[in-house]
């Protein structure tokens, strides 16, 4: 049977694999063909693994034996370049990890291997996941498959572009301040940021440890849910992980109440097309039987400045490990101290250096109280804002995912602050540790190209199921799911 990688979902591919319409090897080959044709223009993949067909053959054996067959057996997936798979190159798109091969499996890689999923390759990203456009990669920017003059979003831009170009059925990325949801919005995909601790961070290169989560980018809500269920769970290697019932088991309400923080959602700087599309999405949610409630959350505008204090503080300590001594690349100097300075000064890119400097500043004696300590206090105020609204019976908070559709490559690269503002709606979920999802909500016609837009929903801790349920209804009336 003819394989159309632009139409397949995990669910439909699994059915075809089970009924023998095509083999896992044929499926993998179809994806390799698309990558071969499109990747030179899109630059979604930094590397396509050379054992893809062997992995697929193993999956075929498993399917033939009818033992241990999982929904993901034989499903071709892409992996962001900051998630370790033992024995494979991994580099966070940074020169400082040039030549590094992963020495162990991340927990998510181990879990996916157990399902028999097929890893196609590692995807481009902003260096160490720092950025909102994938332009901070040391290996050139990724382009948006919907318009190659535009960015795919970031930092998981390579993962998003890989799926959007039909070069992977789904992908894993990481989300520290919106790095899955904003690319999902720009590329027309579903992107989930789970509850903090739902998915193990063992084997994910740490950026902001109190904010990072690994999670899926997929074509449909069902696919995102399938992947999430396959990688979640307690892990002895990550003390911050939680069991799926840590926050109790959710009963699915008959009628969802959706809160809209209007002042925040319509704040200045949000583009007209996004506002128009967001209002349409709210109308659709009403049609689906959701109750829409206007909510006041005064502290939300402070989430972004608090984030750009907490995150660089954590970055400056997490990136201290890259020193040219233990692994990765070394830029030789006269003595050990010069080894450190040259390796870090020359092999980290500009954005990484900028954030290390910022983090060092906000943690330094004399400024700690005014910045870091204050930001942690603000973080609690924001978490409290959400808890108050959820306590009043609201099930999810709706905002746009990003303030604009995909922007031009190079348009914002010289103004770091302008790139930071991309995260305005997404950071609240990382700051509060709550789950959030971006769903495709339509398109904006710009310069003759249809650019995807996204709707973001954020739920209480441990309530991913609310997001999946609302999302599945929402995607049905859009009529795009297969």
């Amino acid at each position, binding site marked *: 049977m003819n394989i159309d990688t632009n139409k397949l979902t995990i669910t439909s591919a699994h059915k075809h694999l089970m009924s023998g319409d095509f083999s896992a090897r044929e499926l993998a080959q179809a994806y390799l063909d698309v990558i071969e044709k499109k990747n030179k223009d899109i630059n979604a993949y930094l590397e396509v693994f050379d054992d893809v067909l062997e992995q697929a053959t193993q999956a075929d054996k498993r399917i033939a034996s009818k033992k241990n067959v999982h929904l993901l057996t034989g499903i071709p997936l892409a992996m962001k370049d900051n998630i370790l798979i033992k024995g494979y190159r991994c580099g966070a798109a940074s020169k400082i990890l040039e030549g590094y091969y992963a020495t162990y499996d991340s927990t998510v890689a181990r879990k996916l291997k157990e399902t028999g999923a097929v890893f196609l390759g590692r995807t481009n990203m902003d260096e160490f996941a720092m950025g909102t456009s994938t332009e901070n990669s040391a290996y050139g920017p990724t382009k948006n498959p919907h318009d190659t003059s535009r960015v795919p979003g970031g930092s998981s831009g390579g993962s998003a572009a890989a799926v959007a170009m039909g070069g992977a059925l789904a992908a894993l990325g990481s989300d520290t301040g919106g790095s899955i949801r904003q690319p999902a919005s720009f590329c027309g995909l579903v992107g989930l940021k789970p509850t903090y601790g739902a998915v193990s961070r063992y084997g994910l290169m740490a950026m902001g440890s*109190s904010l990072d989560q690994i999670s899926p980018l997929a074509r449909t809500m069902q696919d995102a849910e399938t992947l999430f269920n396959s990688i979640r769970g307690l892990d002895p290697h990550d003390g911050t992980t939680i069991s799926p019932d840590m926050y109790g088991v959710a009963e699915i309400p008959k009628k969802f109440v959706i809160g809209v923080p209007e002042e925040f959602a319509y704040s200045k700087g949000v583009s007209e097309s996004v506002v128009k599309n967001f209002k349409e999405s709210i109308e659709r949610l009403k049609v689906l039987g959701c109750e829409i409630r206007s909510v006041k959350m005064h502290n939300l505008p402070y989430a972004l400045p608090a984030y750009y*204090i907490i995150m660089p503080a954590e970055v400056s300590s997490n990136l201290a490990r890259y020193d040219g001594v233990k692994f990765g690349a070394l830029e030789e100097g006269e003595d*050990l101290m010069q080894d450190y300075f040259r390796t870090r000064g020359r092999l980290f890119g500009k954005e990484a250096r900028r954030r290390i400097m910022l983090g060092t500043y906000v943690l*330094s004696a004399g400024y700690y109280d005014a910045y870091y300590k204050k930001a942690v206090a603000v973080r*609690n105020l924001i978490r409290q804002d959400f808890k108050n609204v959820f306590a009043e019976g609201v099930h999810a908070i709706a905002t746009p995912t990003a303030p604009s559709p995909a922007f031009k490559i190079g348009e914002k690269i010289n103004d770091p602050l302008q790139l930071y503002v991309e995260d305005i709606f997404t950071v609240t979920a990382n700051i509060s540790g709550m789950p959030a999802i971006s769903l495709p909500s339509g398109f904006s016609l710009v310069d003759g190209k249809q650019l995807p837009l996204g709707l973001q929903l954020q739920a209480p801790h441990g309530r991913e199921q609310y997001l999946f349920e609302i999302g599945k209804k929402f995607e049905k009336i859009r009529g795009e799911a297969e």
Partner: protein
Amino acid sequence: MLTPKDIDNLAQLARLDIPADEKETLRKEVDSILGYVSEIQKLSGTEVKKEVGEVRNVLREDDNPHLPGEFSEDLLAEVPHRQDNFVKVKKIL
């Protein structure tokens, strides 16, 4: 406002060799970002607790050690300079 001396000091602390022609741009950028994040000073939030996350203690028994040397070869294979089973660095003293 950050001075060029502040930038040198921060770079020193962070072990970063910043090219001379980038220092002024970096100073302006970091300065404008600090200006933006200072927004949070407007909030009076001293009354809130300063904990990060839902605080829980995570402890485990210190047992089931792995075999000596089980991971040594894999890890040492990634070291830029190695001598036998050691990580090699330039002379310190």
